[in-house]
């Protein structure tokens, strides 16, 4: 589904990713773990197309289509979803309005009819209930004044509503207490599907206790330096990233 080859990314003229190669088949969830500064967030932003993250080499395809040629909203239309580490507050735009505009923009771009208001409300109500989010919160401006945990749940509600082909979870466990972590993990697990790929970016293995990845990759110095099964996460948790820090970039 997702195929990244020799990806090189610079931010503000500084090279951060130095030839990253990674493939995630449909139906699989892969974790990318690494120390701070390894380039984890750069990877997620580069995949989503954030301005200022300049791709200087390599390729990224989603189901065979060149992602790098598309602007961020077009990537979302093709089924890329990034759950932000720090979701953005947008004053004056109620969450329901925002999510409905986004869903309809994606549907229009795919040549589908816009969703009706009752169908939309039914859909969001169901997803909010699953994530134990009070529906009234969706009437408030999106993310404004929400706690860290509420923002992350709002991200997972959106992921559930949009039903993306590629879900990128950037440090989704950060800022969550154990109860919220379980709720969010249940939400993520509910979205695991044979026609969806997941990329879970995390510093700690905590989330991976609940969302068991098919593969674990170690990102250090701007490239993948080791890959393994789910047990690799535990090994990293025990032994830390020190032995990978020595690998030259």
């Amino acid at each position: 589904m997702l195929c990244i080859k020799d990806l090189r990314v610079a931010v503000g003229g500084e090279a951060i990713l130095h030839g990253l190669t990674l493939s995630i088949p449909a139906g699989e969830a892969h974790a990318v773990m690494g120390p701070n500064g390894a380039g984890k967030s750069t990877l997620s932003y580069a995949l989503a197309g954030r301005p200022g993250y300049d791709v200087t080499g390599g390729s990224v395809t989603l189901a065979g289509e060149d992602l790098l040629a598309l602007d961020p909203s077009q990537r979302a239309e093709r089924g890329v979803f990034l759950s932000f580490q720090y979701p953005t507050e947008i004053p004056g735009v109620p969450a329901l309005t925002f999510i409905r505009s986004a869903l309809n923009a994606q549907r229009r771009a795919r040549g589908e009819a816009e969703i009706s208001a009752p169908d939309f409300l039914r859909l969001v109500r169901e997803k909010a209930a699953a994530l134990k989010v009070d529906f009234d919160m969706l009437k408030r401006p999106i993310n404004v004044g929400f706690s860290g945990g509420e923002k992350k749940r709002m991200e997972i509600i959106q992921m559930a509503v949009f039903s993306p082909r590629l879900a990128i979870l950037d440090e989704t466990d950060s800022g969550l207490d154990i109860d919220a972590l379980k709720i969010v993990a249940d939400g993520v697990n509910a979205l695991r599907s044979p026609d969806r790929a997941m990329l879970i970016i995390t510093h700690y293995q905590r989330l991976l206790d609940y969302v068991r990845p098919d593969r674990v990759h170690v990102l250090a110095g701007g490239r993948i330096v080791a890959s393994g099964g789910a047990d690799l996460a535990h090994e990293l948790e025990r032994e830390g990233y020190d032995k990978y820090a020595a690998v030259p970039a």
Partner: protein
Amino acid sequence: MSSLARAIETGDLTQLPSRRDEDWRWTDLRGLIRVLPPASQVSAWPPGPGPFDGLADQEWLIVNGRGERWLSLAAGEQRTVALRVLAAPGAGAHAARLEIDIEDGASLTLLESYEGQSADYVVETDISISLGNKASLDRVVVGADHAMGVSVSRARVPLGRGSRFGQTVLTFGARRQRLETIVDHPGAGAMARLDGVYLLGDQRHADITTLVTHQGVGGSTDQLVKGVVADQARGVFQGRIVVSRGADKTDARMGHHALILSDRAEVDAKPELEIYADDVACAHGNTVGALDEEALFYAASRGIGPDEARAMLTEAFVGEVIDRIAHQGARGRLRLLVAEHLRGRR
């Protein structure tokens, strides 16, 4: 008579307000107008639909400066009036003076629109509105002038004791356009709210100028003006609140906030609080910025394209002002006008 009205009546261009006049330095008419258009003619053109259709008890039409000059509400009366000031085909130069008398305890909702249905006009509309004791006026103004029109509207509003005056202007600018409000504030429990929104593109110009003079104890003025300028447009905000000696316990708040969406667009702002009394609560804030890039990317990452994301954020930005309109129908109409404008359907 204003200098513009004198110029229109005498044809003497040197009378036009110019950049040498402190209050007009950002809305120079003398430098703009080389030849005045001919005097406005009677128009037989049907006025067509207006922005407030269906909301008012009474429609008051001023077409090319012609129409009823006077409106009066008896003590205790309540009325909603749609005042449509049209520059219809045949419009050239004219100055119109209107008078509104709202007696004690009466309540007027004035839904006012400036509609440019032809181009190349130079028009002044001067409205005197006297507001009796404990009377109330809700004034909602839409500036829908033609891109090639020159339009100045001035309202002079002396407030009665304990009266309430709420105003919201929504304008899309013109070749040159100024919406001016002058409030004589007696204090005495009277309340004034003077809000505005300008949304300008292309080479349009809009000037929102207000002057409030607090002359007595215990009055309040609350002002929130927001604007968005794109392309080569220019927005002007001149807000002045004077608190005279002895006008103690005055509460005055002024905020002006603008977004500039292009390198060639411009906003000129002069917020002024002039305070000669001792015991007052006054505050003002003025900011100019750009749309939040983080929010634009967040929206884009969810599939909302750049045009719609900008429209959505702009709508939210000015929505704070629109939400303060008391009249529910007018509030809905203005929300719709903003939404349609931002999505290029007007």
